[in-house]
């Protein structure tokens, strides 16, 4: 009895679900063990702890985000491949290789992972890499908080992968609509894994939002007024405003659903006064802005890439700022377009429909401004520019289908169909993923000191674009054939199988693109001396990050720059002036700390404890978080000083170190 209480709802049976699931378990555990073994064999644990895990350097935190997000991308992609395979074979009497419950867990995991742990991870990673450099500052406003945010994200990642090993995942779709996600219909731990993995990661996102917002508002270098900020910084400003406003909604909503499930409350149950439709409103009040949270930074990256590689100023900067801010505000006013079919009536639907299509206006303006940035430029078609071209040519389709979906009377037909699925993959892959991959290609030399291999990069772009089209055009067509999303099998008389098979082939082509990218990184590391970025300015850049050596030193700037114009580095190069004062001054940098690791570790334990109703362990974990945070306040010296002379010495050697 005592033991039963201690173990909560844990049971041995959750270890075994079948051979297909065993593959996932073995892969996860095996992967973790392999990494641990390699670290031990090469005696790299201390190095990992000192150089990476305890770092307060935003760039290194950014790299860790990107590494984790890439691992999750592979997992989310694996989920996609399984779904595609299932749908390609499960026509008629064949029920495929996945039972419906497992299939539903897979698409829930796919959506959750791709949004929360891939897209969000890449976004925060890239912002960490470049935002402080672009703003001409040495770090983010709160470096330790930044590291805590990362470890909360990592805690979510660990939980979501743990669900693969022990237990199950929600089989409810990535937004877990109640009443399906309530205890009555989903009694297992799957929904709890979903809840707590994104709950913990989401709190990290809120903290990051505050951090970057304050960084932009307070830490811009001397002379950088708002209207002189790079457009990427503007896009991050809009994004972080959204994060700070909407992530608390997510937190509250998930918390209420957790109370329903763990404490027998009735916020969103169908009966006893609960209102499941309130959940759907709340989750989309977060969920729609979330889409813009992901895509705005990508828009910012495209703006930087297209201006730099067209060797020309960004066209219509002021228009761009207005368009960004318009999108930021409008994104709050469109959430109900996700459920026109709830039947709220003509007035409500028309309002939300029209607000949605209004967003197409500033987005269209941005596209034209990008086009006219290319106009009368000298366009260098390097890999980042290929990503930009891939984006514009495919994203237009996604934008147009979005406008179709925004008309309520049309949405009544295509809602929840594969047409919708194709649409949002079209916006997320073309808009967000291409942007982030382009951003990685563009800023990689700044962080690592060598460029990425060009030909392999272009091969990757080609595979992604071709694969994307071959995957999703059949999915658009299937929507018109009446195929709904999330079907694990279908009737052969409908004639869908051929298209599903083509779509699966497309996914393989995307997979080839992923392989090319991994290969690109491998080959680039191999040939890093050939590909070395000697000047720190591989693209003939325009903004401050290109004015420091590559790889960017951990303190970013030995002397803080002073800017007087937009595109300050470009201007300085044109006029032969310097952005830096001649005098070096002393500055302080944060000391490494393991606080983030501890907070994230306890948060992860807490999540696991709540999922399995191990209340004693949950209490221990909360006490642990409180203890380490309080203990931290007793650390008097959390920074160290770099003297003026030391700064000068460091500056002289920066960028010379061979990787």
């Amino acid at each position, binding site marked *: 009895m005592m033991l039963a209480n201690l173990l909560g709802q844990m049971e041995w049976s959750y270890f075994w679900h079948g051979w297909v699931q065993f593959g996932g378990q073995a892969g996860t555990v095996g992967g973790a063990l392999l990494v641990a073994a390699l670290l031990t064999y090469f005696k790299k644990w201390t190095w990992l702890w000192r150089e990476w895990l305890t770092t307060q350097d935003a760039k290194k935190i950014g790299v860790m985000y990107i590494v984790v997000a890439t691992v999750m991308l592979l997992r989310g992609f694996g989920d996609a491949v399984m779904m595609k395979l299932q749908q390609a074979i499960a026509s008629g009497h064949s029920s495929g290789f996945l039972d419906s419950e497992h299939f539903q867990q897979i698409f829930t995991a796919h959506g959750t992972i791709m949004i929360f742990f891939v897209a969000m991870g890449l976004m925060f990673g890239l912002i960490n890499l470049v935002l402080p450099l672009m703003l001409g500052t040495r770090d983010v406003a709160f470096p330790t908080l930044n590291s805590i945010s990362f470890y909360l994200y990592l805690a979510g990642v660990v939980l979501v992968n743990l669900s693969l090993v022990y237990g199950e995942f929600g089989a409810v779709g990535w937004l877990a609509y109640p*009443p399906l996600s309530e205890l009555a219909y989903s009694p297992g731990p799957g929904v709890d894994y979903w809840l707590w993995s994104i709950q913990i990661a989401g709190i990290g996102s809120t903290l990051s939002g505050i951090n970057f917002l304050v960084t932009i508002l307070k830490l811009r270098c001397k002379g950088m007024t708002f209207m002189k900020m790079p457009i990427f910084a503007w896009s991050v400003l809009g994004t972080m405003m959204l994060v700070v406003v909407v992530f608390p909604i997510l937190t509250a909503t998930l918390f209420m659903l957790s109370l329903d499930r763990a404490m027998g409350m009735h916020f969103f149950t169908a009966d006893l006064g609960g209102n499941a439709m309130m959940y759907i409103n709340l989750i989309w009040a977060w969920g729609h802005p979330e889409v813009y949270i992901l895509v705005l930074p990508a828009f910012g990256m495209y703006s930087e890439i297209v201006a730099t590689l067209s060797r020309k*100023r960004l066209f219509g900067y002021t228009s761009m700022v207005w368009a960004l801010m318009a999108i930021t505000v409008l994104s709050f006013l469109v959430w109900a377009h996700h459920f026109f079919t709830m039947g709220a009536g003509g007035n409500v639907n*028309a309002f939300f429909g029209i607000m949605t299509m209004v967003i*197409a206006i500033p987005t269209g303006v941005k596209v034209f401004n990008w086009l006219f940035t290319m106009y009368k430029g000298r366009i260098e078609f390097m890999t980042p520019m290929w990503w930009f071209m891939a984006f514009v040519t495919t994203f237009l389709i996604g934008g147009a289908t979005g*406008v179709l979906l925004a008309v309520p*009377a049309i949405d009544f037909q*295509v809602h929840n169909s594969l047409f919708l699925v194709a649409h949002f993959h079209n916006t997320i892959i073309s808009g967000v993923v291409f942007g982030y991959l382009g951003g990685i290609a563009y800023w990689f030399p700044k962080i690592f000191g060598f460029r990425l291999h060009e030909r392999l990069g272009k091969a990757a772009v080609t595979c992604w674009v071709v694969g994307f089209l071959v995957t999703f055009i059949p999915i658009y067509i299937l929507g018109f054939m009446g195929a709904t999303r999330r079907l694990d099998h279908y009737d052969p008389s409908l004639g869908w199988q051929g298209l599903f098979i083509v779509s699966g082939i497309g996914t393989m082509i995307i997979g080839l693109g992923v392989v090319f990218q991994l290969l690109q990184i491998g080959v680039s590391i191999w040939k890093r001396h050939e590909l070395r970025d000697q000047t720190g300015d591989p693209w003939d850049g325009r903004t401050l990050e290109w004015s420091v050596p590559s790889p960017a030193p951990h303190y970013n700037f030995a002397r803080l720059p002073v800017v007087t114009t937009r595109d300050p580095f470009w201007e300085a190069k044109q006029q032969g002036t310097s952005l830096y004062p001649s005098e070096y001054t002393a500055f302080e940098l944060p000391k490494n700390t393991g606080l983030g690791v501890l907070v994230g570790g306890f948060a992860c334990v807490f999540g696991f404890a709540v999922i399995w109703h191990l209340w004693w362990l949950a209490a221990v974990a909360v006490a642990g978080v409180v203890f380490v945070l309080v203990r931290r306040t007793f650390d008097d010296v959390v920074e160290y000083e770099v003297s003026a002379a030391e700064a000068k010495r460091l500056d002289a050697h920066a960028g010379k170190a061979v990787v």
Partner: protein
Amino acid sequence: MTLLWLLGSVLVIGVLVWLSWGHPFPLIQTRGDIANRQRDLLFFATLLALLVLLPVYFLIFTFAWRYRAGHRKEYKPEWASHKGYEALWWGIPIAIISVLAVVTWVTSHSLDPFKPIASQQKPLHIQVVALQWKWLFLYPEQHVASVNEFAFPVDRPVELTITSDAPMNSFWLPQLAGQIYAMSGMSTQLHIQANARGDYKGVSSNISGKGFADMRFTARAMSRPEYGAWLLHAVDTGNRMDMTAYEKLAQPGVSKTMFFGLDDTGLYDRVILKYMAGSTEHTQNGMKPTDADQPSPTKSSADEGMDMTHMEGM
């Protein structure tokens, strides 16, 4: 290289056409007035979108070709703003979206699924209950019930009132009228009318658990005599639908097509009432029986606070 791309594109398009040719396209091959208008609206909005898309495609490829490095066309690195041009591309999208906004406002009302279809004939009233994982159709006036299939006379408007005794589902009948959510404790409506006889396939388009993929139904638009025969056949099966039979049917599971005579014409209201505050306890396998003494509410009073038509302006 260009040739390769061209050949590849033609090949892919060819394969896609070949694969989808001759198969049903319910969103295009519509057979009801509402769905016809939805489809026409889809075509109209697509054309409108192409008005922006085509010039952009033209411009991006032209600019990319013309201003590529090494081509040495005119180079104006400082040219970064032009009030007139910018006004143009704020203006054109605003104009196009304005047109679409007006169309949206009008059609959101004229094609509102709650809006009855104007007709000389009295609408046929059918109640729909989404169960785990089957659709129950109730004909309170004809005293008939059926599972996963319902019939109605062609050219006569049908008013479907829809609820759920299961996780949320969406009742989608693409060839006739689109879809509407089926939600516990609430009643939504979908008005349909078939312009041609035929069996039209419908599905649940919102995930509702394990058997969701099999949650299909057939809407059969019949001639009057056929419809009469269909009703008689349902009663002739000897199956009776009442609260007891309903409880059995509501157990989770996929079902074949079934027919019943309907004894309890207040069944639909009872299903909704189960979810009203505090009256009963929700259990995993559906609901415990409602209090038999509970008065069957008239439609208007049952709708208080749950009929979504009252939530307009929410």
